[in-house]
């Protein structure tokens, strides 16, 4: 008997909590519109976002081992500001030796293909917008670090 009551209570309580949390249709529309207009206005196309994602993975992989497929890069509304949110599921932070070797490998690579960098420079205009919200990205990053393994990384 008690179980039934408890169950009922949980259901009712859960329903109200859900109703509270759930965004109404109007807010959903406003938020989705803001994001899509942001993209429309800056010409930051999904392809460019994808490119940015790829480059970020490349860069961050030097320092951490992460779940590349679960990495999320999205625009989100933060009050009046648009933020570029980067969520990185960190598997393991690399130690200094690993980072060193990665970096030296990378500098070799850079020498090998200077052409590619020129191509990137053309797109620098549209990536400027993202720099301004770099702080948000960092916040998000540290958040995920906390929730994941290896606190070793924090000391750096």
């Amino acid at each position, binding site marked *: 008997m008690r179980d039934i009551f408890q169950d009922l209570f949980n259901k009712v309580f859960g329903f109200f909590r859900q109703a509270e949390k759930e965004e109404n249709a109007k807010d959903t529309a*406003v938020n*989705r519109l803001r994001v899509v207009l942001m993209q*429309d206005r800056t010409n930051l196309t999904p392809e460019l976002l994808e490119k940015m994602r790829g480059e970020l993975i490349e860069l961050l992989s030097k320092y951490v081992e992460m779940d590349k497929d679960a990495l999320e890069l999205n625009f989100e509304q933060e009050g009046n500001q648009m933020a570029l949110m980067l969520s990185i599921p960190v598997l393991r932070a690399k130690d200094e030796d690993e980072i060193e070797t990665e970096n030296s490998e990378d500098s070799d690579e850079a020498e090998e293909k200077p052409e590619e960098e020129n191509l990137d420079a053309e797109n620098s205009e549209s990536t400027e917008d993202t720099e301004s919200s770099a702080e948000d990205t960092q916040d998000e990053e540290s958040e995920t670090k906390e929730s994941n393994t290896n606190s070793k990384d924090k000391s750096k």
Partner: protein
Amino acid sequence: MSGRVIVITSGKGGVGKTTTSANIGTALARAGKKVVLIDTDLGLRNLDLLLGLENRIVYTIVDVVEERCKLKQALVKDKKNPNLCLLAAAQTRDKSAITQEQLKDICEELKKDYDFILVDCPAGIEQGFQNAIAGASEAIVVTTPEMSAVRDADRIIGLLEAKEEIQSYKLLLNRVRPNLIKSNDMMSVEDVVEILSADLVGIIPEDTGIITSTNKGDPIVNDDSSLAGKAYNNVARRIMGEDVPFMNLEEDRGVISKVKKFFSGLIGKEK
């Protein structure tokens, strides 16, 4: 006389550009202004239907451009209001039948004799749109509180801002449904204005009367009891420079809610 050329545009189709053109034009003419409505939607003309003038069209804008008639011959006078006339679009031609220059010339010519030249723009952002805005110095961007319409309006605003000749543009929010806004199911007027950051020229409530008035070929501003008609009249007054407050749709919805209140009052008393 040097008239004002105002283009009525939206990007998205079906948000009420033509209805808006017909009603603002009629309202301005009712206020004593001399008005020409130009339908630039070549191949998909509809403004004639909304005005009930479909059987009176002899020449179209393409006939004027191709010099088969004089501009004045192509202007069709409205049935009710001698101040209002229509320059119809050709139904059998496509958007390439006229150029931006030609439309500009027509507007310049009409400016001499009319107070207002309202250009009803086709949907889209291609040549038809470019033609329609060519002769205009002002624009009314029609949108509804729906995502797709607002997004397209944003695009149109971007294009209008890039066009030097357009000195000002205003937003007209059409098909507003106060009860949906109240229940947080629809974006509010404030939401849309904030997102698009543009000045408002009018808020038109959703009104089934629009359907019947279209069926009759008689713009709703001619019906003094209609809420949408009143709202369109207010838009016309604002265009003429009057400072008209935006009506409170909640309040005006009144009749029904008053009846409801009355009944709920009765029930309350019985108890």
